């Protein structure tokens, strides 16, 4: 059962800042520790910036759920942008298709518990992760 749920359109840097602020507030309310909040918000920031940079717009949804391991954050960022030709390569360190250092996705994977990336060319990209409260 979701404890709480937030869903938001991402079209601008301001939308990203608002979403990250809501995420931080949500996690603080559920009692996540500072390190986990920092990891979650940083990972979320990377994914939302990717939407802004590559797709122009998209949406984000995050819930705090509970299962047998306890409360966890479930975060999903989706866009209908150009898609990623080779998601596996995009997960490799130092890969970038936009001239940046391309550190985002591998970094996100290291910071969270379950990171999944699915993408279809011309259809869009969905990136999601979970992070259980420590």
């Amino acid at each position, binding site marked *: 059962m979701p404890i709480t749920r937030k869903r938001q359109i991402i079209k601008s840097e301001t939308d990203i800042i608002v979403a990250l602020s809501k995420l931080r507030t949500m996690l603080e309310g559920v009692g996540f520790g500072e390190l986990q909040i920092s990891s979650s918000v940083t990972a979320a920031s990377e994914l939302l910036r990717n939407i802004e940079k590559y797709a122009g717009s998209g949406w984000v949804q995050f819930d705090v759920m509970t299962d047998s391991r306890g409360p966890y954050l479930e975060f999903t960022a989706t866009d209908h942008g150009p898609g990623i030709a080779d998601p596996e390569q995009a997960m490799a360190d130092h890969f970038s298709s936009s001239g940046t250092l391309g550190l985002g996705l591998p*970094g996100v994977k290291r910071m969270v518990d379950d990171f999944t990336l699915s993408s279809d060319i011309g259809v869009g990209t969905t990136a999601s992760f979970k992070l259980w409260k420590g």
Partner: protein
Amino acid sequence: MTVRESGVMQDPKSNNPSDGTETAFNIIDGRLIVTLHPKDDDFYFDSLCDDVSFALGKSGCGVLIMDATHLELIDDWDFQRLRRVIDVAALMGTKTIIAGVRPGVAASIVELGCDIGGFSTALNLKSALRFADTEIGP
């Protein structure tokens, strides 16, 4: 942008109220100190490099201390911009110390795999000033 050493030094750009940059500088014992604030938008980090290089040129400080105490988030994108400030400062002959990085922010920077070479760090501003005195000199 304002550079203060007992209230000295003003950036002409600060006369423009629509500028949106509020980067504040202090000079203590010849060290240029920049207090980093949570960004309102990308423009903050973009303008930071210009503001810092201007202030370094104007003040002649050989040490730049960036106080990150107030930052709750530095992602890869932000770090690349901070990196640019550090690299520009280095080309101007200035050594950079980043002070007060929060534990969560530090852990995230490491997880992101950011290049953390080329600058020094300190637990807080006081430690940074002490480090500048003992390790870098006047």
